[in-house]
């Protein structure tokens, strides 16, 4: 059997014709013939296995920190090998590329077809646990069955009595079920009971509330009524008071003013506001005039008397002087003087008058005064003021 494939006879690898492993590299999409495939070789001839002395060998450094120079050299070697392979590939004769729509296929060309029985079918499988799943519980370990199979038959009634055995189980089952259902029913009943109680309470509460409100309202109305009545009463009292006061005031005023008029009239009368007009007239007009006249008359009277007194005095003095003169000059006659004549006349008249005056002073009547006044002149004009004074004295005495 010939294979239309290539053998790689490299210095490093000694390949034995092992079954062909069609190894698909899962990490690359298509098989790169250029890449070095991994070959399995004899372990004895594997370069990696160290033979012989292990203490003086040039040991590879562990793969953690490869020597960069070494690394580079290795890479170089790899590249060179790759390049060599590529060159060889180029030169190798190949069958031409398949025509459009056709494909190259391996075919057995011997006389007798050989079954490729040693083609091992490979299937890629992989397994990986989920990163974050919990570890599932380990499955129950059921060991493989070993030993002999033995059978036995159980007749009815030998093993157990179903009815008796099932009782406790049934009790538990039924008990649990009933317990659960009881709980549920109890919950509902509890709620219903609470509701009922609440309703009752509410009814009572509403009732009481209504009662309270009614009483409140009643109270309020009563209060209002009372207030109104009290107000009324107060007003009434006030009015009564007012009227009483008014009456009292009226009575008092009446009493006070009762004798007002008489007293007014009395006082008016006393003060002379009511008068008889003629009487008044007489009093006001006549009597003062009368008094005045009386006054005047008496004044005249006094004046006359004073004058008379003076006259008499004059006369007496003159007579005295004359007598003295006469006494001195008997033959001499009085000078023809007005004065003397007058005096002479007056001697006689005056003396008569004087005598008369002395007699009738108290009984002199008014009518006598004016002629006397007319008959003589006042000799002493200078001493009129004495007369005035005397007049005033006299008038003062005479006035009422």
């Amino acid at each position, binding site marked *: 059997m010939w294979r239309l494939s290539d053998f790689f006879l490299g210095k490093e690898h000694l390949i034995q014709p092992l079954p062909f492993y069609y190894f698909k590299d899962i990490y690359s999409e298509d098989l790169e013939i250029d890449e070095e495939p991994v070959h399995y070789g004899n372990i004895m001839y594997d370069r990696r296995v160290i033979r012989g002395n292990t203490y003086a060998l040039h040991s590879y450094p562990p793969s953690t920190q490869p020597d960069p120079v070494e690394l580079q050299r290795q890479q170089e070697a790899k590249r060179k090998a790759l390049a060599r392979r590529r060159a060889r590939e180029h030169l190798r004769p190949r069958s031409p590329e398949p025509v459009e729509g056709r494909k190259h296929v391996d075919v057995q060309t011997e006389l007798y077809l050989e079954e490729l029985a040693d083609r091992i079918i490979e299937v890629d499988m992989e397994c990986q646990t989920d990163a974050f799943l919990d570890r*599932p*519980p*380990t*499955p*129950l370990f059921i060991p493989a069955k070993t030993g002999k199979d033995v059978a036995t038959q159980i007749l009815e009634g030998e093993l157990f009595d179903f009815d008796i055995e099932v009782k406790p189980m049934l009790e538990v089952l039924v008990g649990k079920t009933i317990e659960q259902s009881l*709980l*549920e029913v109890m*919950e509902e009943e509890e*709620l219903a009971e609470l509701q009922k109680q*609440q*309703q009752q309470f509410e*009814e*009572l509460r*509403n*009732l009481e*509330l*209504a*009662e309270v*409100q*009614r009483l*409140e*309202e*009643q109270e309020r*109305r009563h209060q209002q009524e009372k207030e109104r009545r009290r107000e009324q009463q107060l007003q009434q009292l006030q009015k009564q008071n007012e009227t009483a006061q008014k009456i009292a005031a009226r009575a008092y005023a009446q009493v006070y003013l009762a004798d007002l008029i008489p007293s007014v009239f009395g006082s008016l009368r006393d003060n002379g506001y009511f008068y008889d007009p003629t009487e008044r007239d007489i009093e006001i007009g006549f009597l003062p005039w009368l008094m005045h006249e009386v006054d005047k008359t008496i004044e005249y009277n006094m004046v006359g008397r004073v004058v008379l007194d003076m006259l008499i005095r004059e006369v007496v003095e003159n007579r005295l002087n004359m007598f003295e003169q006469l006494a001195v000059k008997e033959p001499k006659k009085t000078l023809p003087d007005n004065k003397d004549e007058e005096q002479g006349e007056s001697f006689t008249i005056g003396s008569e008058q004087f005598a008369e005056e002395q007699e009738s002073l108290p009984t002199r009547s008014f009518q006598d005064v004016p002629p006397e006044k007319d008959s003589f002149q006042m000799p002493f004009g200078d001493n009129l003021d004495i007369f005035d004074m005397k007049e005033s004295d006299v008038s003062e005495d005479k006035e009422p």
Partner: protein
Amino acid sequence: MASPLISQYLPPDIDPTKVSIAYGRRALPKLNEELNSPDLLTRQRALMALCDLVHDPENAYEAISIGCLNTLKLLLKDADSTVRHKTLEVFYIMASHSVGREGFLKNRIILALAPNLEDPVLLCRRFLHMTYVRLAQVPKGAHAIIASGLIPYLVKKVQIEVEEIKEILLDTLYFCLQWDASQALQSDAVPILHEMLFSLNDVIRSKAARTMMALCMPRDGKKKVWEYNVIPILVSLLNDSNIDVLANAAGALMFATVTTAGKYAALDAGALPLLMNLLDINVVKVRINAIKALTMLAEAPEGRVELLQKVYKFKELRRSSISAISRAATIATKVIEWKP
């Protein structure tokens, strides 16, 4: 290939939809980790397992203490509807337990659940609202829901949601409004509920009437209810055939007639004879609500005049075995026979 399964058949108690639960203490932490896994199937199966576990309050406590709630909060925003609906189911089951509710309040779950109000899937919304209902049944929970400012949204939702969800929503609102109805009154709950009183669905009518009752409790509510002329509707509901509707309508009237205006509105609508009929029905709730409503009406002189003729009925009820009824009847007789 070796496999951990010995037999060809799966063991009988394995549910392929659930993830296998680790043993003992490791169960819930492992579930918590699996809930965070990016694989959708794992998450779904872990949620199914969690659902089952949380029925037990001890497990619920443990789950909350290892911080499952935060994981679940994230899952609420998941794109897959199964995940969301299962998450909400877990929340619902946890809300049935007291520890669950405490955990919710501590971890601010209420607000985290709020975006799911807009969830397009009905099942998710249903579980969400059921969770809210469970939470609202406890005073703390109700206060927390009110404090989170969800009431206006819930009121709006009541208008636009489907019937199934409306029922649940009305329950939530009822429980919350018992404590503080001011937010709801501000968001115009009265007209919305007014419409719902006409609904054809019995359950919705009864629940709407109950919520109306809660709205009537504060004084503002009473005023608003009178303004919107709801009282005649409530009186007409007294003719209904459904017991719950009757009870709740009587209850709502009971609160609405506390004010004088309400009393006269009810009397004008002819509530007296209808309420007297209710006294004959042997259901406790109906009876006490009717007695109370009649007591309110008896304070008005017109009401008293009519009720004086029927005092004997109240006197009979005084001898009832249920203390609430006999007490209410005693008060009623006292009010009816009162002379100024």
